[in-house]
């Protein structure tokens, strides 16, 4: 029987994978995907909780999060494109103009 704890474990694993990706990956696009993975880990947890708490609030929240995440995609990709135009790179190491 698959219970709440399984979902939570999966969600925690996804979140950790995402965090790991953000911390160790060097390509901006992959880092960005990892961020999305973390958001979706939260979504999964919300849906699971909603199911086991017997109320729909969590699922409502998830719909909003998906929408917000879409907006975040738009902004994030735009920022990456803007940087790419100036530096022809999408590598995190190249974010070094500041902090000299």
């Amino acid at each position, binding site marked *: 029987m698959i219970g709440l704890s399984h979902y939570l474990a999966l969600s925690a694993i996804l979140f950790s994978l995402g965090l790991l990706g953000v911390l160790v990956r060097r390509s901006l696009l992959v880092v960005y995907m990892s961020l999305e993975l*973390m958001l979706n880990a939260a979504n999964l947890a919300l849906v699971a909780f909603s199911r086991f708490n017997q109320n729909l609030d969590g699922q409502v929240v998830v719909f909003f999060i998906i929408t917000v995440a879409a907006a975040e995609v738009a902004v*994030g990709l735009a*920022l990456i494109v803007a940087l790419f135009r100036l530096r022809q790179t999408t590598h995190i190491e190249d974010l070094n103009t500041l902090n000299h």
Partner: protein
Amino acid sequence: MNYGELLKLLAPESILALTLLLVLGADATFLSGRAPGLRRAVAASLTVAGCMGAIYWIFFFPIHGHLFSGVLVVDPLTQVTKQVLLLLTAATALLTLETAFTPHVGEYFGLQLLATLGFLFMVSSEDILTIFVALELASLSLYMLASFAKGNLASAEAGLKYFLYGGLASAFLLFGFSLLYGLTGETLLAKIAAKITTTPRDPLLVVAISMVLTGLGFKIAAVPFQLWAPDVYEGAPTPSAALIASGSKLASFFLLEKMMTIGLSSAVGSGAFHALAAGWVPMLAMLAGLSLIVGNLTALAQTSVKRLLAYSAIAHAGYALLGVIANSSQGFVALLFYVMTYGFTVLGAFGVVAVVERQTGSDRLEAFAGLSRRSPVLAGVLFVCLLSLAGIPPLAGFFGKFYLFAAILRAGAPSLGILWLVILAIALSAVSLFYYLQVLKQAFVREAPLELPFSVKPSTQLVLILLALCVILFGCAPDLLVSKLLLALKAAAPGLVF
């Protein structure tokens, strides 16, 4: 559900949204192709008019209520805070006139309004769903504002860094929220708090609190979530940095205070030296202590004034956190007084930096040399603002700090357990005088190689003088604001004794 009532309660927000459309529309239609100076002037006037309209509305139609059983809360305290937020945005818009980094005038002012809209909703939200949406509205707008000087690598990089750290923080916040929801089955802060008392203490709760604190700690730039701040302050266009430092700080602190004192009111714990107890207070006390130390000490070594202001902002987040840690109504009022006056002060400082940067092309310390003769007004404003940040009376920063210290100690009285944090804060404020004086030394003592007077727009002068006067006024007569906030807090939460 009554949509008429919704519209009335959210009239200030609606006014702002309409202004946003107006600014975009005007810039895209009959102003397209005109001189950028004119476009900026029109956009700024519209922005200021919109903010003033919203402020007047709040002033003359004091309607209060809770929508959808508390998802959106409109009470006297939120309304006062919103008025201050709108004032900060109006001042930022006027200061933007000093700069000329972008041809996309309408969008820039529009985004400022959009971010402000996010701030207003942050202040009114008491449900994790609306909190998240409001926070993201503000954050996404700020990411774009930070990277708005598109041709400038520093700005693009600042925006991207802000975005990456911010995205990470949102993910943490959201995961924390999902755990809170899971533990209680509720999304309303007050109901979450009620359920937590009945649920036995859970390690998941500790994880949830830490994750929420991570997310909000990023917004207020508390150590160890401050990494973005110096780069963003330095790289972003100055008005964007000013908005991030003033309005965003105020809204985030208001949100943090509500989150902690309402949503987590049953997991307080204790930060007293001899009696640490698990809860959010000791966690915040640690963040505050770290922010004070790291912010103040790192600021000592800065040569870029914007970076210096960033580290000072980190340190000030540490001071302001004392108000949250107090977990009392006095603490709430002290926090609001501090962050509001901090907003005015830091806007004034950034305004001066914006002018100096435009005229000399640099925000290094040396660029400020001879400022007192190149522009006595700017030098005077800088004098007032930086000394207020350093906590010199009779300026607002001093009273704000004192009020925070008194509030946090009184909340724990008669035990002085939290005194260690106050001692740390006071000792480091003595350190902070050193780096503020470094800037003032350039402005007043050193002489410039070229003593050409600065040309400063009358609107900028006016705004800066008004900001400096506010800082002096609230320092000499703090009761003007304090009594107002106390009354508003009493009216907002009559039976509330935190």
